[in-house]
Each structure stands twice: as C-alpha cells, then as structure tokens.
C-alpha cells in the first residue's frame, strides 16, 4: 500500500523479494545495493541467523528523487524463505506494492518454488490481496546451474499469464538490475491514489 504524505511531500512504495530458501533473494538485494550510487541508497540492514540465513528481512531504502514535487522512495525488502520463518515472511509482505518472485532454476527445486509461491499467495490473501492483481515479476535465478528449469515451467504450473520473466545469475549481477527496474516500473504504471 503506497504511503502518501502531503505534509512531508513523500510517496513511499514497498517492493519485496520472495521465493524459496536460498533462491537468491538476499543476493539480489545485496547486488542492487552495491550497484546504486551512494547518494540514492540507505544502509542495507540484514536480520540474519548465525548461519547467514534471512531470519526476518533484509531492507534498504532507495531515494529516487522528485516527481511532481514529491520525494519518491522505494523501500526494498527480502522475505525469509525458510519454512520455519513463514510467520516472519507474512509480516514482511504486509503493505507490499510489488513483488519479485526469485525462483531457483535448479531442477530439483521445482517443488520448492511452487510451494513457496503458494505460501506467498496465501500470506497475501490474509491481507486481502490477490497476488494476481499485484505488480510482480518472476526471476529465474541460478541460470548457470546444470540443466536449469526451462523458462515457462513455473508460469505453466502456477498459471502465471503475462508475468514479466527475467533470467538471472544474481551472484554475478546478471539480470538483477533489469528485474528491479521492471518491477518498479510496473508499480508506478499501476500507481493510483
């Protein structure tokens, strides 16, 4: 849900990276953070377990600049992918304006990808949000793995029509900026007051 402030002249939008554990959500966010100029990004916060797994969320704000006299900001989050942190994942999705679903292209992860998507879908339903109406992009990460899932697999399994799809190798940055650019574009294109 966009945050609009007339008095502060601010518009803040929330985008979350979700997907199964170890699919590359934090890797995506970290790459975006490194790639941005210092003056537009805030500090990257990661709330992790001792094993460097996302426990609650990773977060940093992007100060986009002025649009029509309003300071536009995107708050970027990742959602924990591990199943035992599903409650935390749900909390982070509240108020989200757009999502990037980061799928793991390794063929043995197909089931995890599908299960994770269903969990995200159900979590959004708990906030009365239909995932099909939310600005979203699908990223097939880890395209450098052996026999990656063919693009189109998840779209067919999950009935995702017309969702923008990106192939990525997030550890190298491949496809990462294209993904965030597209999801933020869709959020803006559909922005309503």
């Amino acid at each position, binding site marked *: *849900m966009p945050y609009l402030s007339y008095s502060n002249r601010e518009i803040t939008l929330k985008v979350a990276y979700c997907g199964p554990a170890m699919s590359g959500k934090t890797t995506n966010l970290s790459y975006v953070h490194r790639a941005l100029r210092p003056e537009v990004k805030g500090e990257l916060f990661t709330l992790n377990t001792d094993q460097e797994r996302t426990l609650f969320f990773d977060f940093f704000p992007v100060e*986009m600049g002025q649009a029509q006299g309003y300071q536009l900001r995107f708050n970027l989050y990742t959602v924990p992918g591990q199943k035992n942190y599903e409650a935390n994942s749900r909390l982070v999705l509240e108020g989200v304006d757009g999502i990037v679903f980061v799928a793991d292209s390794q063929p043995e992860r197909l089931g995890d990808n599908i299960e994770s998507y269903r969990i995200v879908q159900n979590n959004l339903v708990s906030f009365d949000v239909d995932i099909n109406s939310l600005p979203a992009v699908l990223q097939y990460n880890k395209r450098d793995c052996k026999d990656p899932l063919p693009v189109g697999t998840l779209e067919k399994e999950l009935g995702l029509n017309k969702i923008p799809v990106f192939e990525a190798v997030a550890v190298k940055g491949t496809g990462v900026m294209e993904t965030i650019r597209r999801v933020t574009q869709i959020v803006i294109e559909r*922005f309503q007051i």
Partner: protein
Amino acid sequence: MLLITRQGITIAVAGDTSYLNTTAMAALVAGMFSATKEVARIVGEPQFSILLQQGEKKHIHISLVGEQTMLVVIFEDQNRIGMIRLYARRVAGALVQSMAASTEIEQVSGELLLPKFREYALALIDRIFQA
C-alpha cells in the same frame, strides 16, 4: 521521538534525532512490532500495545497510536518510565484525533497529476536502476 507507520515509514520526528538513521529505525521497529503482535496472538492476546526496550544508557518505549501508527520514544533516565508511559498515552489520544481529521490522501490526490507523476517516476527508475 518518532511517529512511524506500521509499514515502517517515519511520519514525524521530534527532539534530537540527528544521530539516528530514522528510515532504518522505522522499518526495524515496525518489523519488531509486527512480530510481537503475532506473539500476542499466539498467547491469546489481541496485541501488546506497548514495547519497552532497555539498554545500558538509552531505552526505547514504543506504543500504538490508533491501529496504523506507533510512537517511539527514546529516553535515557529509566526512572522516568512511568512519566513516559503517561505522556505517551496522552499524546496517543490527541494524535488519534488529529490523524482522524487528516485529509492527507485527499490533498495529495488533489495536487498530483498522475500521468505526469508516472512519467517523471519512470524516468527516475530508468536513471537509477541502470543495468
């Protein structure tokens, strides 16, 4: 003091916050409050309306203001916690009334030309999220 939304956005600040990363603090406090709300639900409470974090020198009192906002008070003298709670409760009541009367969204709606806003915003996206 900070007034933040449940989505983790700072609405207003008061006092010396120059040493704080208020953007990050708002996001983290909102996350903390969301988590404790779920804990409350698990133990059978509708919610915990107050959080108190005790440090060595600085302490934080977080209280709900209405349903969507939180008041964060950072203070140093732990002996003042009773007074902090009292004033936070009073301020919360006044803020709830004030925010109920707010027409922020209507004012933004009246001022923002959506097609132009989208045009400028998309140009910003192209510039900032370059591959």
